[in-house]
């Protein structure tokens, strides 16, 4: 695969999205999933949480327009497997996420989209979220390769799932081409599965 897929570092200003167990129904309400493309998903990101009586409220996504790094708390993206949720974040502008923890399907989806999703402890996350509130124009940098996040004068160690790191750094997060090249091995596997008929 070409080198343009390598993701070693992402950066930009931040947006805190505080709260534990934020589910994908909040990130992207189901009624906006009736479109056959992801093109407009950014418009629906946190649609309900961002509005009071139809008007934009002071939700962080309204206050930190243009941000690239989302900072979240624990079990983010739980619930439905809809890729619409990380797609909406990506299309809104999020290039990387720092947080306490992610629901697994959500993290897998981030990997498929090339969005690094790194983790650190609760206190560190809260400090970063507060720092963003005080420094809305401050740059945050996620160094995927070295597992570090830096902002202001601070550099913190973060963790990133091994497979995600490898995939991003090596530029192999688009798994279709990779797995497609193993076609003959797939045939060998299916030959031993009594319930799979040879493809005809």
């Amino acid at each position, binding site marked *: 695969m070409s080198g343009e897929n390598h993701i070693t570092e992402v950066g930009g200003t931040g947006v805190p999205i505080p709260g*534990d*167990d934020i*589910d994908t*129904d*909040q990130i992207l*309400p*189901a*009624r906006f*999933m*009736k*479109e*056959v*493309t*992801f093109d407009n998903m950014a418009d629906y990101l946190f649609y*309900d949480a961002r509005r009071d009586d139809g008007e934009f409220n002071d939700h962080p996504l309204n206050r930190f327009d243009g941000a690239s790094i989302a900072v979240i*708390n*624990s*079990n983010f993206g*739980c*619930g*439905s*497997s*809809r*890729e*619409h949720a*990380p*797609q909406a974040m990506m299309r809104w502008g999020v290039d990387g996420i720092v947080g306490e*923890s992610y*629901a*697994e*399907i959500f993290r*897998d*989806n981030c990997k*498929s*989209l090339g969005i690094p999703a790194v983790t650190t402890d609760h206190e560190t996350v809260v400090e970063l979220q507060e720092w963003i509130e005080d420094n809305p124009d401050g740059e945050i940098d996620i160094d995927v390769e070295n597992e570090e996040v830096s902002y202001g004068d601070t550099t913190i160690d973060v963790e990133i799932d*091994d*497979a*995600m790191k*490898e*995939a991003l750094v*090596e530029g*192999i997060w688009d*798994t*279709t081409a*990779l*797995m*497609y090249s*193993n*076609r003959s*091995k*797939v045939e*060998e*596997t*299916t030959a031993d*599965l*009594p*319930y*799979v*008929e040879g*493809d005809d």
Partner: protein
Amino acid sequence: MSNGTLYDKVWEKHKVAELPSGQDQLFIGLHLVHEVTSPQAFGMLRERDLDVAYPNQTFATTDHIAPTEAEKRERPLTDEQSEEMLSALERNTSENGITFFGFESGKQGITHVVAPELGLSQPGMTVACGDSHTATHGAFGSIGVGIGTSQIRDVLATGCIAADKQNVRRINVEGELGEGVYAKDIILKIIQDLGVDGGVGHVYEYSGPAIEALDMEGRLAVCNMSIEGGARAGYINPDETTYEYLQGREYVPEGEAFEERKEYWESVKSDDDAEYDDVVTVDADDIDPLLTWGINPGQVIEITDSVPHPEDFEARTDREAAEQALDHMDIEPGQSMLGYDVDVAFLGTCTNGRVTDFAEAAKILEGHTVDDDVRALAVPGSETVREECEARGIDETFINAGFQWRRAGCSMCLAMNDDSLEGDEVCASSSNRNFIGRQGSKEGRTVLMSPAMVAAAAVEGEVADAREFLSDDPAGGASGVEEAAD
């Protein structure tokens, strides 16, 4: 790492290669497709000029947007976006030689209801679907995983996903369920004990006498909500109950071929001396009907308990979540959920939309009518379920009691069709998620419970203990509750 479990065996049999990322390339033997999460994936395939690699292992139906009122199922659908999604699925499946169970087929319904009843889901398979409740199929002793749209593209193009092997936690459910306590209560109890993120990094193997005693429909309900407990998948080892259920179903081989297939099924069962990463025990004898009081499936209590105080929780985040839940649900700590006013009763979904669920609820409804202030919806999980209920006269019981008897779909589980909560209505629901906004209204309030409890709530117009309806002796029902409370 676990050793000798069904999970290990099925994984090894389907592992194609180790990828450079360290993940495994895993072959998917059954790929289920629905209208909401697939159009973008078919689009990606077209962009890359790739064909569907294993159309014979791929099956589609329509569920999320399916109108449940008969007259609204005529084409084109009145909702333009729904029509566009349905047409896209029809086009994508026919162009790629994929079997599609549409309205006309008589087999349409929720993927996780349709695949089991047609015999598509079998032991020793890997099953994937662009839907988190794919864990459901684990009830047969398969590995069922929910995937995102990019992964759907992967499965369509290569028949495979890139996946990490998880740890296996065995959950032993000892004892025996009491009357009026169901599979749904077992899984709610497990989520109460282990939390909504307790399963992260794990798949759950459910075992023990109370699990073995469940019929396939009960097992499907348990595995279905594995995801609400944070587990990536959940499964039950196949046994005679499984094989009996499978025998004679449309996609299950017959005669000698059945016996041969059964040998494979037997071969993937967890060994007696299998090693688990973790073992947890739950006692079914002690379980009373459970229901949620909050806004995630872990905010759940037994009917005999009262709503907790935020201070009862150790973690700050749990306390905050409890406060938010109390506020949204408009309830007080220390209050009983019994008597909580209900506006809507909803029976259906991939958790509890099967024949047994309607049959159990019908036992409660027999001779009663739905409260005047309650809107009550019965939505079969599939057209096959609907027909069987109608053949057995179960629909009559519902209609006579004052329920609307609908056609198959996801319906008010997530309100992508016309079925939705209005304003701050309270819904007694047999579904699996009580997240804010899930049932279509930002202020709507969802109380998750078993089908029997939904029926009882429909009759009373408030949360009630279904066991009181099951007792022949009216006084006996109430005393049953007291016994359970002490």
